[in-house]
């Protein structure tokens, strides 16, 4: 059991959505006809999997297949409608590089803010700030408001802070899409510093070349179900073949 990072057993998640636009008339008609204006939409259906410690796992699937919902359940952002799961370890997530930053305060203040979100205290981060600014090339911007930075600079800053947190599970949900060569190099450098075999990484992306570079295993989600789980190349080939059939 010690080498298991995540176990999910029969995870399901449903959302209630509107069938049609709500107006006072529609509400009255639905009361008279006893028709509900809402319907249940199952986004994740009976999802089970075991993810081992040290796995570099890609979550594959089309838009709306349940990847983000599955990750949000694992990080307790959503409650599961049914099923159970267990996460061994402290998850650090990056669902969007700009999340957690405050556009209207300085870059330095944002380093402390995002650091706190990732569990790094100010006195620990104080010794790292200069290094973060230098490696991200933001020394001249340190007192500028964050809104003055480009998206690429924000991505590099977010990543640089995230990888300084002590964690054994990193989750990236399409946060690494549309990145430039500089960013890939930064990401590579950070990954190399992680202890091999101890740190689990889960990624979602629509860029299969990017995922192939970093992931060794994959789960293919289709219509909220675990369609396939195995070595990356095998799962990815089957997933890509599904587009042609």
């Amino acid at each position, binding site marked *: 059991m010690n080498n298991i990072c995540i176990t999910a057993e029969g995870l399901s998640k449903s*959302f*209630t959505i509107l069938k049609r636009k709500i107006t006072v008339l529609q509400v009255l008609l639905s009361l008279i006809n006893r028709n509900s204006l809402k319907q249940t939409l199952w986004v994740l259906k009976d999802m089970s999997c075991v993810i081992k410690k040290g796995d570099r796992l890609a979550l594959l699937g089309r838009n709306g297949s349940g990847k983000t919902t599955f990750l*949000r359940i694992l*990080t*307790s*952002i*959503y*409650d599961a409608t049914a099923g159970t799961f267990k996460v061994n370890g402290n*998850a650090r*997530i990056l*669902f*969007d590089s700009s*999340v*957690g930053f*405050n556009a*209207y*305060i*300085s870059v330095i*203040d*944002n380093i*402390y*803010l995002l*650091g*706190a*979100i990732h*569990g790094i*205290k*100010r006195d620990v981060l104080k010794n790292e700030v200069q290094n973060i600014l230098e490696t991200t090339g933001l020394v001249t911007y340190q007192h500028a408001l964050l809104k003055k930075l480009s998206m690429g600079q924000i991505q590099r800053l977010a990543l640089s802070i995230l990888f300084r947190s002590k964690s054994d599970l990193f989750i990236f*949900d399409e946060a690494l899409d549309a990145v430039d060569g500089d960013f890939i190099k930064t990401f590579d450098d950070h990954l190399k510093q992680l202890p091999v075999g101890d740190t689990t990484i889960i990624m979602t992306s629509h860029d299969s070349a990017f995922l192939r570079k970093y992931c060794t295993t994959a789960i293919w989600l289709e219509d909220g179900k675990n369609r396939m789980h195995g070595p990356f190349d095998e799962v990815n080939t089957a997933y890509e073949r599904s587009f042609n059939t």
Partner: protein
Amino acid sequence: MNKRLTAKLKRLFTSYNRNLLIEMIYADFKMYDRDSILGTFWILLNPMITLLIMYCVFETRFGHSIQFYPLYILIGIATVNFFINVTTKMINSISFNRYVVLNSTIPRENFILTDLFVHIYKLFIELSLCWLLSIYYGVFAWQAVLLALPLLAALAGLALGAGMIISLIYCYAMDIEHIWRIITRLLLFVTPVFYSLEHISHFFSKVIYWFNPLTPFLIAFRQIIIWNNSLDLVNYAYSICWGCCFLVLGYLVFITFENTAIEQV
């Protein structure tokens, strides 16, 4: 209380969350008057103008029978404004931060708590003005400051509890924002800000005292700041009770329904 709720309650007091909350509050303060030239002056302007208008309009009607009438009004304005401003800000705390809430593991109550602290700072500034006036009238006493602290904490608890509940309701029905604006506008009149309970009928004074949670706070603050030898301990305890009950109720409702509420936004 089930396991999930206990875990949520515990997360509030972890060292991780304490550190995060401090950074969020710090960022909020940094943002607060970032583009303002006059800064703190604006905090004082609103209550000063309200005081001036209320004093001019009601001085002849109520002022003669109330000692230190300007100070009496100012304490009322500061207390009621605090409650109104905090709860109004908290209404859309969750929906405004929806994207962050759905894409991070930051405890949601942190967004609401962060909104509270800037207003506590404002309240301190406004109460400092009250104390300056009390020095001017020669009624200032140091022990009053100590007695006011638990009352301030209870008032913050009252606003926080109410804010947590309405921020959840807002996720289901945005109408609450309009309803709350009407309620808060009425609060200035159904709370003895510029009149005292003796000025209204016995029935209404009972209703306003027992059903408006701000009334005992106003009475206690005035007894502490203006008439520091005549503190009614029962009223003081009653105020603290309102604050504690709202805080506990609001927090329990919040941690019970936060996950379903966020799916509605």
